[in-house]
């Protein structure tokens, strides 16, 4: 199937009324949770994960993806109006977005963030189509050793790049890998680390783990803090219109931000948060007057917003074509696919063309929805910022309980969510990243299966990881990533 045929096919899938509705639903819900500080895209996707059991795999993924990029749009609203990032991806946007709002240019800042997000997503879709076709073609020759090495590199990259304490991040990944071992071993049928609990035979439930780590832990951490801000400034439609100078300044940062985000989004381990920081840094470095940044420079809104949206689209490349999620949100997407019995990999493009191309086209449609809806509805989103968190979180807790219960009708799972939640909160408080725990949990069984298969193929010779060029490249990259933080500390700072 050529790209054009694929897109035409995808258009047919994505324009089905049921898919359109879930795309719209996802986009609106995503914006809603993105706007609300204290609930991130991660928690929102987790809360919706139980629903995906009851709808088709295409609808499920289209909806979850809509939540993901919808949250990017919404996150910018809280960042600009309150200097509270609604999502980590929009944290950099506060640096120049909030000063713009204080200068009475909140409307222009919001317009810039939405147009940049839209442009970033659209160009990101192009990058996604090109890259996944190329990568899927290449990946058909990948063996078990290559996959295992690649996944290990992804985990190491996610824990070292952009983390101030890589040892703590790596520890979380390993805890996640161990948690992934719990349950029946696929190869031997032995029940591992279940301690006789029959409830754990199928392993820890992904939904229970994610709800505990993100839903419950985020609620606990935000009960006291989320309401400590002044009222947001009012924004009218007329204030949204940028000046000619604003538009001229936007174009370059959007294009550079999209390119950067598209590239880093597709790499395993580096996600949309990192690419938004990098895009901001790049703009400041090449600006003629860098001192403008931090004081309401429109480039400082356009670059990170286009980068994080572009990255959130291209993050699907490794997830769909290799079956390797690059960040925890993609790990949940992978989980949603596996629930439906679809194991993503290089053959996904040919075996599930409805899935792949439908999703690609729905990205475009969903982002169009967001642009068209959010600009006129901006007043509603702003007024949602006024809802106090204390009214929301008890309802969130009840929905978490029922969501977890609905997956397999087990009250034991609700109990588990409580235990995981308090552990997740304690870990977050001690500056550990529960997101990496989840990534390790999802990748663990895949790594173990591929490792065991690789060693079987090589008759127990570990040299297979150095003899195969692809695996060897990933092993070298992993070693470099592990050495880099040590080297950085030893070399004295200039």
């Amino acid at each position, binding site marked *: 199937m050529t790209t054009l045929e694929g897109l035409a096919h995808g258009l047919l899938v994505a324009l089905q009324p049921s898919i359109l509705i879930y795309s719209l639903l996802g986009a609106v819900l995503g914006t809603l949770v993105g706007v609300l500080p204290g609930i991130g895209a991660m928690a929102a996707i987790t809360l919706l994960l139980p629903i995906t059991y009851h709808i088709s795999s295409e609808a499920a993924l289209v909806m979850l993806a809509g939540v993901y990029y919808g949250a990017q749009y919404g996150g910018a609203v809280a960042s600009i109006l309150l200097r509270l990032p609604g999502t980590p991806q929009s944290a950099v946007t506060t640096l120049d977005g909030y000063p713009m709002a204080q200068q009475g240019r909140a409307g222009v800042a919001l317009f810039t963030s939405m147009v940049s997000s839209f442009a970033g997503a659209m160009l990101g879709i192009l990058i996604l189509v090109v890259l996944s076709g190329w990568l899927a073609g290449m990946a058909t020759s990948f063996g078990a050793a290559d996959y295992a090495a690649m996944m290990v590199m992804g985990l190491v990259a996610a824990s070292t790049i952009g983390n101030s304490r890589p*040892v*703590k991040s*790596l*520890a979380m990944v*390993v*805890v996640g*890998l*161990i948690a992934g*071992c719990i349950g029946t*071993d696929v*190869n*031997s049928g*032995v029940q*591992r*680390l279940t301690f006789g609990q029959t409830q754990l035979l199928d392993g820890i439930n992904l939904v229970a783990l994610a709800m505990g780590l993100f839903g*419950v832990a985020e*609620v*606990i*951490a935000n*009960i*006291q803090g989320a*309401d400590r801000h002044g009222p947001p400034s009012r924004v009218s439609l007329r204030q949204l219109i940028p000046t000619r100078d604003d538009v001229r300044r936007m174009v370059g940062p959007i294009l550079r931000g999209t390119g950067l985000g598209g590239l880093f989004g597709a790499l395993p381990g580096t996600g949309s948060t990192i690419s938004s920081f990098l895009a901001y840094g790049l703009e400041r470095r090449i600006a003629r007057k860098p001192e403008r940044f931090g004081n309401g420079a429109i480039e400082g809104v356009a670059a990170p917003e286009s980068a994080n949206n572009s990255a959130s689209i291209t993050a699907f490349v490794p997830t769909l074509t290799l079956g390797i999620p690059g960040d925890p949100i993609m790990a949940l997407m992978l989980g949603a696919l596996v629930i439906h019995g679809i194991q993503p990999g290089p053959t996904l493009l040919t075996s599930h063309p409805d899935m792949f191309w439908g999703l690609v086209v729905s990205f475009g449609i969903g982002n169009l929805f967001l642009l068209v809806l959010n600009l006129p509805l901006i007043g509603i989103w702003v007024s949602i910022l006024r809802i*106090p968190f*204390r*009214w929301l*979180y*008890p*309802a969130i*807790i*009840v*929905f978490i*309980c*029922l969501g977890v*219960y*609905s997956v397999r009708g087990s*009250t*034991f799972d*609700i*109990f588990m*969510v*409580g*235990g995981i*939640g*308090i552990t997740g*909160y*304690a*870990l977050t*408080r*001690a*500056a*550990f990243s529960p997101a990496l725990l989840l990534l390790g949990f999802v990748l663990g069984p895949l790594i*173990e299966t591929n*490792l*065991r298969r690789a*060693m*079987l193929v090589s*008759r*127990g*010779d*570990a040299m297979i990881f150095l003899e195969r060029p692809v695996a060897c490249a990933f092993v070298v990259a992993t070693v470099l990533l592990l050495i880099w933080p040590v080297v950085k500390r030893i070399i004295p700072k200039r």
Partner: protein
Amino acid sequence: MQRDHDDIMWGAILALLGLGVAAYAAACYDMGSLRRMGPGFFPVMLGIVLAVLGAAIAVPAWWRKGVARPLYWREALGVTASLMLFSVLMGTAGIVVATVVTTLVASSVAPRGGTLWRVVLAVVVAALTWLIFIAGLSMSIPVWPWS
């Protein structure tokens, strides 16, 4: 002498967890060979790595000043208790009672005083829950204590 107590404690917990997993897996599951790895191989390996990482977190923290962070223990206990109450009450007392109790317990740790808004919230959330999950999605859960 300032110490980073958080990191010392968590490093130690993780190291012990790693050792525990490695020892338990080595004792109870077949390690197999490199060629045919048994079910014990991967957990033992991971346990050892975790033990090393835990030590690498705890040891340097002995000579370093920690960061003071607020500990929301009331909030943590309130939220966790509300979840566990829901899990117990749902099957026995029905979803309406469970929702009201959970909402009241969860909102008891909110930063604002007062009783009225908590009661109103509990009733509203219970009504919404009934509308969405029973009337809308028709989940088969007991609604009332006598049903």
